[in-house]
């Protein structure tokens, strides 16, 4: 067992973990943060994407002990990073643009999108598609996800909580 301390979504947690424990299993099983999902066992699907020290990480590719002393942001803490009581613009835009159906890939897709927008605040549709190539969605065909990310980009740039109308407003 190894003792680790993580700050997850603003709260500090100290636990003894088996060295083999993956970060995603630690989040889900030890901390009860089940907002982050597991979709595969080969780090292809991206459903488990979180941020570690501000960068997106597939939390199935990192051991919990590797996250010791670091800050983790999950989908469950995302809204708190945005001013006001409401949702983060990405969460709003995914709803507005119908960028999710079953919603299982959504936490990872949103966290990966956040990383993409941190690096490129005004991506083209093509850039969004390539930026999200590590995240699989089986329901949407991605078109509305691309629209949502671009719509959220506008909202984030403008610093507003409400995304611009995306479906007609943003060229695909």
């Amino acid at each position, binding site marked *: 067992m190894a003792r680790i301390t993580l700050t997850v979504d603003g709260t500090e947690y100290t636990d003894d973990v088996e060295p083999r424990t993956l970060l995603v299993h630690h989040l889900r099983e030890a901390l009860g943060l*089940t907002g982050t999902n597991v979709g595969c066992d080969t780090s292809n699907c991206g459903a488990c994407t979180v941020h570690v020290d501000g960068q997106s990480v597939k939390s199935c590719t990192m051991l919990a002990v590797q996250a010791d002393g670091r800050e983790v942001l999950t989908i469950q803490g995302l809204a708190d990073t945005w001013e006001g009581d409401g*949702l983060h613009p990405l969460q709003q835009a*995914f709803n507005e643009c119908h960028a999710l159906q079953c919603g299982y890939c959504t936490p990872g897709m949103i966290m990966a999108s956040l990383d993409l927008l941190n690096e490129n605040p005004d991506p083209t549709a093509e850039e969004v598609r390539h930026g999200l190539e590590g995240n699989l969605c089986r329901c949407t065909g991605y078109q509305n996800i691309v629209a949502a990310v671009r719509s959220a980009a506008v909202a984030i740039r403008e610093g507003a909580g409400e995304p611009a109308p995306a479906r007609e407003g943003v060229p695909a």
Partner: protein
Amino acid sequence: MTMAPEAPTTHGGIGSSPRRKEDAHLVTGQTAWTDNLAPVGTLHLAFVRSPMAHARIGSIDASAAEDMPNVLGVFTGDDFADECATLPCAWPVTPDMVQPLHPPIARHKVRFAGDPVAVVVARDRASAVDAAETVVVDYDPLPAVVDLERALTDEVVLHEDEGTNKAFFFSMPTGADVDETFAKADVVVKRRFLQQRLLPTPIEPRAVLCIPQAAAGDFTLYSSTQIPHVLRTMLSIVTGMPEHKLRVVAPDVGGGFGAKLQVTGEEVVAVLVAKRLGRPVKWTETRSETNLTMHHGRGQIQDIEIAATREGKLLGLKVDLLADMGAYLMLVTPGVPILGAFMFPAIYKMDAYRFQCTGVFTSKTPTDAYRGAGRPEATFAIERIMDELAVELDMDPLELRRMNWIRHEEFPFETVAGLTYDSGNYEAATDRAVELFDYDGLRREQEERRQRGDTVQLGIGISTFTEMCGLAPSRVLGQLDYGAGGWEAATVRMLPSGKVQVVTGSSPHGQGHETTLSQIASSALGVPYEDIEVLHGDTQVAPMGMDTYGSRSLVVGGIALQRAATKVVDKARRVAAHLLEASEDDLEFESGRFSVRGTPSSGTTIQEVALAVFAAHDYPEDMEPDLTGHAVYDPTNFSYPHGTHLCAVEVDTETGRPTIRTYVAVDDVGKVINPQIVEGQVHGGLAQGIAQALYEGVVYDDDGNLVTGTLVDYLVPAAPDLPEFTTDRTETPADNDLGVKGVGEAGTIASTPAVVNAIVDAVRHLGVADVEMPCTPERVWRAIQDAQEGAQR
């Protein structure tokens, strides 16, 4: 009648796209996937699975596992033999169908790589997995049965007691004498198409949690399932446990696509272990386990022959299928190709049709429903051979289709396969698609590229499709020997405060039932969208239901809801008339308010009526104080959405790489409740159909090992792999209460042939007549090389 889509109506009512009710918890991670649930004391399962495709099971030594810490027990197939002899198959498609036993844990023999041979129960998942790895199974290997045609020689028989690998032979001759028709036809084109196996791949793997209440003998099963109701009934049948003691809950379910339309061995084992140990029991699969053991889709060899006159008039069609069942018949395995039987003639008029299908056992993962289930396979074959016939006749493939399809004034139309299409307007959808696609412009460009010998060639693919969905009229299902009906139940309950509960027997996993059904209830009752709550997916909350598959939730469940809501309005009208001291006939009902005709100031809202009924101080004497409506709707026909999909593909002739340049989908799904959700369903359907054409395919080696065992080896398309779609609609109302048609499978059914037709069209002039799916760059390149070499010989 076909018209342009109507402008959105009132917010939240039919025809509008209010924000989905499902999303708030999904975008914030406040979800209830089955794997998120675990009461204190939950035990975890890990299955020991066969690494061999076909072998006799010798001894199973679990002593090391039993001695490991945290392990509560190890069970084999024999341990549950008395409690569950076989998993169910609900669709015996012929009276003499071979139906071998399919125990939840294999006994005596394993018949596919992944077949479970033992299950370990432990305090935590890691301990269970660790212990499972120590179980030593002595296998006596037998030859694998991989190839369908070879399987039929019965050299190696998978189910020895049955003596054959042939599961069934189904035959359906209809219309005029087929052989005579073909004998006198000017032109006959024959082709063999291969439908590769696919992995449905919902992003949420399966998970099961069974919570026993041992003293009362009650069991609650949470499962990532599409079919909580069917599952409850089937579990009861195969385990003998009383149905009323089983509660099945489908909590948040992360996609299904037919793969969670199943009664799995893992679900049965979870129940039986929970029963035996009196503790909650849970199993969550890994993705590698999903690929190995969640049922696969497709898997057919299609021999198809079409007869026509020299002028291009279709005369007849012959179809002979070999359908890969895999190792066992699961819930609707044999029925999948039979659903296709009705769809090969598609939208075309012809006089003679013969369909035959042989179901074949192979030592591979069982197949069963995957988005479209039989209809994508059929649509692929007919739309591919229409293009081949057009080449043979030297006709434009679109013209050939126009010449033969059912014209809009001919509906309702009885097809040669015996279905009656209630509605459709293929001309309107095609005209719109052609316009959006710039068909003539692209044909010109194609000709120019051919003329100048461009290394990048352009192909145009057409798919003018229809499908039968909205399963289904119960009587028709009965004629097809399906084990259940096709009705759906709904209850509408007005609460005292005027809020509304809708209970549906359909069970969502991404389709947006809460949103769409709220819209129907909102329009019917005149109650705001936000005041409606849709309850589903729990046999305790929604005791009656037939669940979600076959694009049925709206066309069957939505109409059940419409009828239940109508009953509530009828009851409310009687109370309102009583309260207003007016005749019911004099009451108008609009936007949730009853008013006396001619005296609009005299009225009462349905919410006020709900409160009055709750108080029950003053209501008609011949009524009960109740504002609940319940309806069970059993449709009289299937639903027949249709559309025209046009695809332009650029093929780099030097690398073989196909790239979709333009994809236009014009779908006619009748009246639309929520345009945004409809468009989303089309997008997702297109993605899966295109994936079959270009990317996905299950691979087994000669020994029956699954080569595509992970998402590294099986290419589920990501965002850069798919194009931007252009979608539009025409609206030809269906002949039902809401005018609606199913939409869930249409995109998948239509798109695969559109893409492959485009690829073949791009390189047809180089001598290529077909490319096997998935049309990878290597396959396209080889097809070009082979054609060129053939030409040189």
